[in-house]
């Protein structure tokens, strides 16, 4: 996680700090790019967030296939991420520090399990489409784009399902088994292959955790950094012909 935060600092926080600083510098030279302040641009950027981040219309205009692929990855990843954070905070920390075990043993856990399996499935489907498209169908120049980070995320998602399947194979009487609609059937088919599922489940968990750590360490240095950078950059620059406004100010300063 240290590498993740270091990368986010180096490739995002420092960059945005620089952009804000350079724009303030320009303001001092009568070429102020933000007459009403950058914060007001962000406040009015909700339409950009809605059309470009949630609906992802620029991708839809380009290709319906790419739009479906990107939407599956985006919604699958973000939902899984939210469920994962919720399980960690409300489940693990809640049980450890406040004695609340609803999200670890009760119906809350069942709900989280179901949500994580579904969002994981959506993500896995989107990633598979993306990899197949990039490796076999896309133009030669574009085919390698993002393959490493997508491949890593694909392995991470697959190992997540296998970890759950191995765990269920080692615990056949798990009361929440029926909520794992992918891990459960997978475990039923795997259970005959070995007798030592407890050890295998531990190793699979270690593998999954290692890939997760690698993924988060690689994240800020990969094209996936756009998850943070694009909404911010586009909120500020995609309104009311921002580029032309800057040019107008330059020309005005030459009057």
């Amino acid at each position, binding site marked *: 996680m240290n590498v993740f935060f270091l990368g986010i600092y180096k*490739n*995002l926080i420092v*960059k*945005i700090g*620089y*952009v804000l600083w*350079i*724009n303030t510098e*320009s303001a001092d030279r009568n*070429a102020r*790019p933000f007459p009403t302040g950058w914060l007001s641009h962000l406040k009015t950027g909700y339409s950009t967030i809605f059309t470009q981040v949630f609906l992802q219309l*620029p*991708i839809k*205009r*380009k290709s319906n296939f790419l739009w479906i692929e990107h939407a599956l990855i985006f919604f699958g990843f973000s939902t899984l991420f939210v469920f994962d954070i919720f399980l960690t905070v409300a489940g693990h920390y809640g049980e450890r520090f406040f004695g609340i075990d609803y999200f670890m043993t009760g119906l809350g856990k069942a709900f989280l399990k179901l949500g994580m399996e579904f969002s994981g499935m959506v993500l896995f489907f989107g990633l598979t489409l993306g990899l197949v498209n990039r490796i076999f169908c896309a133009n030669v*120049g*574009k085919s*390698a*784009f993002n393959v490493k980070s997508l491949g890593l995320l694909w392995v991470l998602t697959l190992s997540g399902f296998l970890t759950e399947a191995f765990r269920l194979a080692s615990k056949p009487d798990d009361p929440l088994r029926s909520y794992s609609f992918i891990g459960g059937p997978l475990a039923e088919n795997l259970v005959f292959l070995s007798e030592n599922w407890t050890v295998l489940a531990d190793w699979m968990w270690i593998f999954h955790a290692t890939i997760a750590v690698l993924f988060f360490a690689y994240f800020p240095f990969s*094209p996936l*950094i*756009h998850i943070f*950078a*694009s909404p*911010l*950059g*586009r909120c*500020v*620059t*995609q309104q009311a012909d*921002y*580029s*032309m*406004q*800057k*040019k*107008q100010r*330059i*020309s*005005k300063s*030459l*009057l």
Partner: protein
Amino acid sequence: MAQYGFYFDKEKCIGCRACEIACQLWNGAVQTVKWRNVVMTYEGTFPEISSVNVSLACMHCADAPCQKACPRSAISKDEMTGLVTVNQKSCVGCMLCLWACPFGAPQLGIDGVMEKCTFCEERPLSMKRACEEICPTQAIITGPIAQLSEIVKQNVSQRLLLDETSGTLLGHGDMKE
């Protein structure tokens, strides 16, 4: 390193937009949005009105803010020519470069990645750029910055005699004289 760039003479520009068209025609194969824009600004009220036409593209700044702002290091500066270009394979279209650029030069192309003036990279540097070649009033001049700053000085000295405003080398420090 010889830093190349543009000199734009606002006193000569008549706002005909021929440079915009020449840029699009020459770079049509790789350009999906306008890389060069002619902007017209008016100030004051009739009859005391003043206007200026400015033809702006990437100025290939000496200390390019877009390069420093890019989180993917997709923007690079050529060591031999000082030209600033975008590697479209690395670009993720986050638009931080446009946010940083004082001229609003980088544009989001239809492929979802940033595009900007490449200084007509397919042309030999000994030739004129497309925008410079077409300009009927020679308002755009390209070349090494050292050479362009000499032109600026000449224009300044000529115009001082006529009590007119001087030229500016945008993107390459405060060269207004």
